[in-house]
């Protein structure tokens, strides 16, 4: 069963190579760094909408726990910690976790980073569960979603993001993105991408209700933006039924 959920070892090794470069805003994760503020804006709005926190509050997650699964070197964990959450970050690649720990220490942030898989968290519940650009890399998405749902505390909030499986995303992320080296080669396998309908069905199958699906678009002139257009990539908010 563990193997069914496990990130492909091939893919984990690939991200490990990138670990040292993760935090370089001009390095191989440059696109991810540019994407981050837009994604964080979506997450903040979802937090305020769900817990009715003041949009101007600096620490809306104070007193809450958060899990980021597939945390990389902590691009999302660190902001969640600054927003007040007690954060646990899990990633399959030990190199990522090593890089994440070093960076969080430099920032003076206490984040519980663990190398491993979602199964490690059996029995633990979190108020906020996030997993960005991960589900398209797992071997069994349905089992992955069930594991995420079971780690969500009652009244909790789940936010996922993933590329859509469309001609546009294949062109943008693989042909152009990886072709031009803007995204490291071999990052994506288009056939494993999920459409919003497929992901919604998986979440519903795990006892969740999807409350929002928002597209993430990219243009050369304006960069990334939240959008009605879900053809490239999208974010999903879900709560327990």
């Amino acid at each position, binding site marked *: 069963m563990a193997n069914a959920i496990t990130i492909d070892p091939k893919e984990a090794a690939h991200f490990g190579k990138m670990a040292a470069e993760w935090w370089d805003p001009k390095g191989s994760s440059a696109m991810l760094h540019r994407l981050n503020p837009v994604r964080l804006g979506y997450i903040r709005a979802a937090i305020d909408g769900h817990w009715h926190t003041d949009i101007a509050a*600096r620490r809306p997650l104070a007193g809450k726990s958060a899990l980021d699964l597939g945390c990389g070197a902590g691009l999302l964990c660190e*902001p969640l910690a600054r927003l007040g959450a007690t954060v646990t970050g899990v990633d399959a690649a030990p190199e990522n976790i090593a890089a994440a720990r070093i960076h969080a220490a430099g920032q003076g942030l206490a984040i519980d980073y663990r190398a491993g898989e979602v199964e490690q968290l059996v029995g633990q519940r979190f108020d906020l569960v996030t997993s960005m650009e991960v589900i398209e890399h797992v071997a069994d998405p349905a089992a992955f979603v069930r594991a995420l749902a079971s780690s969500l505390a009652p009244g909790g909030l789940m936010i996922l993001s993933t590329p859509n499986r469309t001609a546009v995303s294949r062109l943008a992320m693989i042909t152009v993105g990886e072709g031009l080296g803007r995204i490291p080669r071999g990052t994506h396998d288009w056939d494993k991408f999920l459409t919003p309908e497929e992901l919604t069905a998986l979440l519903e199958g795990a006892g969740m209700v999807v409350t929002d699906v928002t597209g993430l678009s990219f243009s050369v002139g304006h960069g990334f933006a939240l959008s009605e257009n879900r053809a490239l990539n999208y974010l999903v908010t879900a709560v327990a039924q």
Partner: protein
Amino acid sequence: MERADVIILGGGLVGLTLAIALDAHGLSSIVIDVANPETQIAPGFDGRASAVASASWKMLEAIGVGARLEGQGCPIREIRVSDGLSKGTLNFAPDPAEGPLGIMFENRALRLALRETALAAQNITLVMPARAADVQRDEHGVTVTLEDGRIFTGSLLIAAEGRKSPTRAAAGINIAHWTYDHVAIISALAHDVPHGNVAYEIFYPAGPFALLPMLPGADGSPRSAIVWTVKASDAPAMLALSDRAFLAEADKRMGGMLGALRAAAPRSSYPLGFQHTAKITAQRLALVGDSAHGIHPIAGQGLNLGFRDVGALAEVLIDGVRIGLDPGDPQLLARYERWRSLDSLMVAASTDGLTRLFGVPGKTALAIRRFGLGAVQRIPALKARFMDEARGESGALPKLLQGLTV
């Protein structure tokens, strides 16, 4: 060792305004300045005054500084631009319901109001007079060590040190720079004829002679600030003139329109130059105000450009911490740089162009200038655009400059 979100080097008008704008939104700052605040706000008018554009004023009101300045500024209701004393002036007089084009303040009043607001703020630490002996910026933060050994840390360093910013130089940021070989003589005059809240910009081959309406002085007589552009080689003589001779020269430039003149402030001079850099950020560093751009004070835009930097940078940092980013995050600095660079270049280039156009002697140039002024006067869209520029309301305005909190 004390820590804040940002460390601001330079506690002048721009640096303090930024600290106050951030404080109003819960971001903390440490402001370090070499100047002694007691001498900065010493009683008596030193002749330095600023036209606060209406957008800038909205920001000062939004962050709680406006209330402390109420009744201390003179609204500018009309701007008259002319080529020498020739007829055919270009008048900018908005509908009174739209509010003034700007408000003239003694700089001392601005400094006092900003200092009082900053002292009352919860999230501002004023460290002045003090000099930074060592500044370190690295991947994780900024450390400033003072000459007296005190150490401060933060997430972002902000240079608000003025035109000769040592921090900018240390960061290796090069600026495009040239001097005009001209100097602005700055002072104030008391006059018999009321100014009627009109600002005058009278262009001469050596440069513009500007009169800006102020509130009456202690003796109750009408006052105007002057910004008089002269050749650099003439400046020492201008500063050394007796009051009587200086006033006679000024009166000639004004054609006697404000009646008998008296000196109302000491004279000082300000070398004019143009400087611009597209790069206003580096690792954990942002430039604001004249550290980022020095421009000809012809249209009073220098301080207002600095206030626009404040509005943009404050909004970027406030938005940033609300989504959990570190205030020194490269993505935030990139947004600030994109937002500001085009605007400041446009303002700098247009004031520079104006200065050069009016500096050309000869009949043809005169005809072109008259034609240009006439065209602006006749074409409402062009005129509206100039007025928006004067008010500081053109371009993508930060929320603070719309009078809104972020």
